[in-house]
């Protein structure tokens, strides 16, 4: 076996040094009734070439965006990732290290995480960011818990424009920690009234920017109402590229910004691993979940970085910790940070503009189709459309034509018949004119 260096001679020598007759003896504490009897029900190991062949065959059974026009979003966006990023990510010193518990030999990890924290804080317009959570949906649950700790209240208000997975994961977590969740109806027209529902029990309101159905809203007034009521405003961002172009949540008065960073550097990967982002106002940092990197000096007075404020965390505080998170999304944070670094201010802004321009062009062309209505007045790179037919069969029929046309909203809200004809459609910089032509032509066929 190519991963196992011990030879039989080594094994015999080592057993002698141990004073055991066989490896079986080392398992003497295992009750006899629980020992594996007979061979394992798994196939024989394969050579590298054979594994590659087998998995390539499996992968080839998927229709791959990039090979075909793709307009899917709904929380996962296809972007071009510079070639250098993946090659750098594969450097073993990054890939095969763990949590930087030994800062003297982990300055690489610590510095890139410090840079990551800074980038996330900058683009969200917030004061501080942590070193990542699992994904956007779990970050939403963490934000709800954090808001409950900060405000010592127990009501969580969820916008109907928040990603349904964020809503569901937050509701699951709330149920088990005795928080009360009020989830507003899905809001494809962007007309819900949140302010009227904030009261003295409200710990936080969680909204999304751009909204799940595409709307761009200024939450400044909502932030003021929250502040007046003593509640926190949590803003979720599922598409961080938008922050290259739109007013950041921090400038609107958000207390906590959460989101998913997979758009930058990480890629689709069938939806995981993602990259949970969380940025907060500095005054709440001690209630924040997740790891934080801080600046300090070493014994020679040189600047360096360490894990800090660990007294919030499970390995120190155990049952009193702010969260149970340990392993986070370190390498995805590096991918995100690298992509941000490669882009820089000019690249990031231009990327955002390109996305928006693509989406505007698409909205115009779709709006001209008979029976198709674009539901959002303002949007970034994604919007909801109302089709003249149920969206699921339309999407299936388009897939049969090798076009990934959009995401039927009923996939998230199967028990809402009024959403049956609604489809989310996204256009990033990866969409070409030919892709759009194919989409329009395909829809004309399928909808007629």
């Amino acid at each position, binding site marked *: 076996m190519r991963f196992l260096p011990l030879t039989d001679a080594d094994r015999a020598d080592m057993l002698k040094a141990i004073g055991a007759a066989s490896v079986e003896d080392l398992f003497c504490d295992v009750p006899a009734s629980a020992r594996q009897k007979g061979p394992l029900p798994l196939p024989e190991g394969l050579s590298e070439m054979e594994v590659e062949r087998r998995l390539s065959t499996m992968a080839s059974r998927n229709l791959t965006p990039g090979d075909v026009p793709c307009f899917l979003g709904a929380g996962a966006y296809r972007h071009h990732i510079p070639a250098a990023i993946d090659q750098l990510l594969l450097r073993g010193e990054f890939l095969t290290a763990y949590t930087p518990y030994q800062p003297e030999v982990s300055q690489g990890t610590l510095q890139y995480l410090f840079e990551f924290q800074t980038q996330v804080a900058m683009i969200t317009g917030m004061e501080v960011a942590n070193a990542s959570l699992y994904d956007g949906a*779990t970050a939403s649950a963490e934000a709800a818990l954090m808001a409950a700790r900060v405000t010592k209240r127990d009501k969580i208000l969820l916008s109907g424009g928040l990603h349904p997975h964020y809503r569901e994961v937050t509701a699951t977590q709330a149920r088990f920690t005795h928080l009360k969740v009020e989830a507003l109806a899905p809001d494809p027209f962007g007309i819900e009234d949140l302010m009227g529902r904030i009261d003295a029990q409200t710990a936080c309101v969680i909204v999304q920017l751009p909204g799940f159905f595409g709307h761009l809203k200024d939450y400044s007034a909502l932030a003021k109402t929250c502040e007046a009521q003593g509640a926190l405003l949590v803003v979720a961002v599922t598409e961080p590229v938008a922050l290259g172009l739109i007013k950041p949540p921090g400038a609107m008065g958000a207390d906590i910004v959460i989101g998913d960073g997979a758009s930058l550097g990480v890629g689709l990967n069938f939806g995981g691993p993602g990259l949970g982002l969380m940025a907060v106002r500095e005054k709440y940092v001690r209630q924040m979940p997740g790891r934080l990197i801080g600046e300090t000096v070493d014994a020679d007075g040189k600047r360096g970085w360490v894990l800090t404020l660990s007294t919030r965390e499970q390995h120190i505080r155990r049952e009193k910790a702010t969260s*149970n998170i340990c392993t986070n999304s370190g390498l995805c944070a590096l991918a995100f940070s690298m992509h941000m670094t490669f882009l820089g201010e000019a690249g990031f802004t231009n990327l955002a503009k390109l996305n928006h321009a693509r989406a505007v062009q698409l909205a115009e062309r779709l709006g001209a189709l008979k029976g198709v209505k674009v539901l959002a007045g303002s949007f970034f790179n994604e919007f909801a459309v109302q089709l003249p037919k149920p969206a699921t069969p339309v999407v299936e029929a388009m897939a049969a034509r090798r076009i990934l046309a959009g995401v039927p909203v009923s996939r998230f809200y199967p028990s809402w018949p009024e959403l049956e004809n609604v489809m989310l459609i996204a256009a990033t910089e990866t969409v070409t004119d030919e892709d759009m032509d194919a989409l329009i032509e395909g829809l004309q066929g399928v909808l007629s």
Partner: protein
Amino acid sequence: MSMNSFTGNRALVIEEPLIFEQGEPQRSGVDLPQAPEIADRLGGLERQGAIGLPGLAEPECVRHYTRLSQKNFGIDTGFYPLGSCTMKHNPRLNEKAARLPGFSGVHPLQPASTVQGALEAISLLGRWLMDLTGMPAIAMSPAAGAHGELCGLMAIRAAHEDRGDARQIVLVPESAHGTNPATATLCGYQVVSIPANEKGRVDLAALKAKLDNKVAALMLTNPNTCGLFESEILEIASAVKAAGAYFYCDGANFNAIVGRVKVADLGIDAMHINLHKTFSTPHGGGGPGAGPVVLSERLKAYAPVPFVRTGENGLELVEHCLGDGEKSFGRMKGFHGQFGVMIRSLAYILSMGGNGLWQASSDAVLNANYLLARLSVELTPSFPDGPCMHEALFDDRFLKDTGVTTLDFAKAMIDEGFHPMTMYFPLVVHGALLMEPTETESKQTLDLYVDTLLSLARKAKAGGAADDFKAAPRMTPRRRLDETRAARSPVLRWKASE
């Protein structure tokens, strides 16, 4: 001899400023087509003013990250015996497989008919993890070990509530990882601690005394964090069951027993498996991982969504629990779990096969016992009366009166080219040194490690060396860092100087 250079650099170790200290706004490492002029539809929500991000050209970016990487110790660099973390070799085939465009490029919300290969991958890995544990069900979506713990406890709580049983307590041994009690809290439970006995195992009598009809579950790590198999596990399981509670097993240490012990035969109701430990996916400087949870018949119905099943048109994803009598506790993760991590584990299991996995756990245990035997000459093993499993635990008695602490000892190892072991955990012994060699280390590596540690121990014991130890490490990119200062006045981001 002066170690100072004009630049502050030392050959391959090059000082590297933050990106914010070297960029120019007009530079970029990416060239995209210029965005066309359009009438925007931002509804007046356009960003005002610059973000302040630095701009670097591609060669500067590449050099920045290459230099940062050179300040890091990974498994590829050298021996990394971080106990409880299973820092085994990360096969590069895993990386290649996960990057096949048909896996890395697929969108999570494509119609099921277009992702049959992806669903097959999830389903096949799930099948094999069930086969390896003998358990009848699995939840594939948890994102890491701690998230798997949460999944298990949520299923347990849902099962109790389903019967109208509002139990409040979760029992957690003192030796447990911090995530266990933290998870219990996140699931709304109170934690009651169970002491260890003098053999490093759960004190069965103390456990039984605490088991009553208020106890929802026991969370037990097996093999435990002292590196020992809980030899009374069958008695523990039946006592837990008799009290009407569930048995959650923290499977972080599954690497010791893969292919040798069937979890189902131990009476366990739920166990998470850290794919980033046992199944060789990279730790990536802190993540991502994946923590699928195997479940017993009693908990099966409460598993979270989504899951993959076979339907009329091939494999399908069940994303909602809508029907009457559906008991799933709901969703705990966006999309479908850590797919990219699953592919890596699948590549690993395909490579190893049943025999290879069996050999791996055997070698992992052999390597740990070899360390235990050889190091016991100078170090103080905490539980010397029998073999260990995949990791060996020592405490700091051998450093008594030397003025050298576990921390100092670990830092001295760094200068010798080794990553330290896990320090000060588990909490049940004083100044713990927990070493997990894994099966992917050669005898030659272990011998050099042992010889180094023995000589360091002798040096400490000979006396007069405390200052020398306290000054370690000396040859690293940074010497010891001031953690108190970092926490007292936190600087958590770069800021432009005013």
